[in-house]
């Protein structure tokens, strides 16, 4: 193995350890942490890792501090971004159950996220709970919203307004979700 290959092979292993294992309260690693651990060429290491993960149907996901994806990020933006490993392809509802989500809870999450998107990223908790109550038992609605907040899908301010949080930005293709909901036709 050439010196260069060996260099990147060891960096890839280190990046895998850092990204797969949860080290902080939130999963993933900040760009500056990766720079510290892997060196200044960490974006290249992540690119190699992403290519490698393709065959496993996984990907390295970058979540920028700003709400939207940045096309050509600067080093500063990368340093502040959070890097995570997510699934690359689709998951089936059956698989969702296997990773610990009940159909009810997942449906509730989808509804809450779509509704908040339609309300320009901010909606009163009461309105979200009302729409959830349509299909979920009343006692469960508040608990579910709290759970979505705890997991980082939603966040809430002191005026009980709900917003989308970092995990939704990392895991959910918001445009595609709204398009799919709107284009859904009853079979």
């Amino acid at each position, binding site marked *: 193995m050439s010196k260069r290959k060996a260099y990147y092979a060891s960096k890839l292993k280190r990046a895998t350890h850092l990204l797969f294992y949860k080290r902080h309260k939130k999963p*993933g690693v900040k760009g500056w942490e990766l720079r510290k651990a892997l060196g200044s060429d960490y974006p290249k290491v992540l690119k190699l890792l992403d290519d490698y993960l393709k065959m496993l149907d996984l990907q390295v996901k970058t979540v920028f501090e700003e709400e939207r994806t940045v096309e050509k990020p600067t080093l500063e933006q990368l340093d502040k971004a959070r890097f995570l490993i997510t699934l690359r392809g689709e998951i089936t509802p059956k698989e*969702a159950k296997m990773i610990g989500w009940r159909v009810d809870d997942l449906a509730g999450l989808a*509804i809450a996220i779509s*509704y908040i998107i339609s309300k*320009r990223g901010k909606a009163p908790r009461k309105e979200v709970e009302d729409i959830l109550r349509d*299909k979920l038992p009343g006692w469960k609605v508040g608990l579910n919203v709290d759970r979505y907040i705890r997991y980082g899908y939603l966040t809430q301010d002191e005026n009980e307004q709900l917003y989308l949080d970092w995990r939704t930005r990392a895991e959910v293709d918001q445009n595609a979700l*709204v398009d799919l909901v709107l284009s859904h036709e009853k079979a």
Partner: protein
Amino acid sequence: MQSKKEHENLGREKLQRIIDTCKSVEDRALDPFLVDIKGNINALKEYFPEWRIPEDLCLDAETVHHLASVTRLQSEWVKHRSTSLYTDPFLLEDKIRRMTKADIVETFAKVWRPTIELEQISLRSITEAIEYWDSLLPMKERWKEFPLGENETGTATREELISQRILRDRSFSEELETFWQQLKKSTAEKGENGKIHYWNFVGADTYNETVQRAFMASFLITYGYATLEIHPLEEEVFIVPYQKPAPNTGSKQLVSIPIAVSAEDWQKWKKGELQ
């Protein structure tokens, strides 16, 4: 003919109404175009020459501030409408209501890429744990300084328990409520701008009582009856009572703030050297 004073009062009411409307738009995510910015600016212009006292000028500035916020929301609203994320909320709500749970889950599964996160103990943490275990004294050695005496069982009345300070004569919640009223009263009398210096509130004639008050104050803050305001540069700590207990929303990260209430500090406070 309307007198000058009446005209001023009318102006104040008008400005307050504008502020309230703007606030409700800001807080409840209502359509920001419900606010007539131009009309309200004209009203501001109309009353501005009347204002003489600082309070009225502040009201005017606050109105301008809120109108500016609503203008910003209008700009964001236009931007959002021009993006692909814009959707008519009513249309989306209608769709969601008509979809079955299974349909919703199937749709969501198509756009959801859950994060992979593993939790596993590392070799380093195992080593640290073993080192900790090795240095840990056996239970019998750790507990030997607390010899258990032979106890006789018996009965005690509530009054006896109160006199031995095992029970209080009032429930804790009642006591907390009374303490909160005390805080509000002390703030109104001795504080300023709705807050009071921490030591001026918890400080008492005896050190024991001071510790007791500091203990109760910590519960007032934890349960949302009051909050702390800390000025690190000035090394000042204030307690700010809420008029209504603030609900714990669960989304905020709670932080612990240690405040030392040592006998030396208490003595300093008694001498007026500490606030």
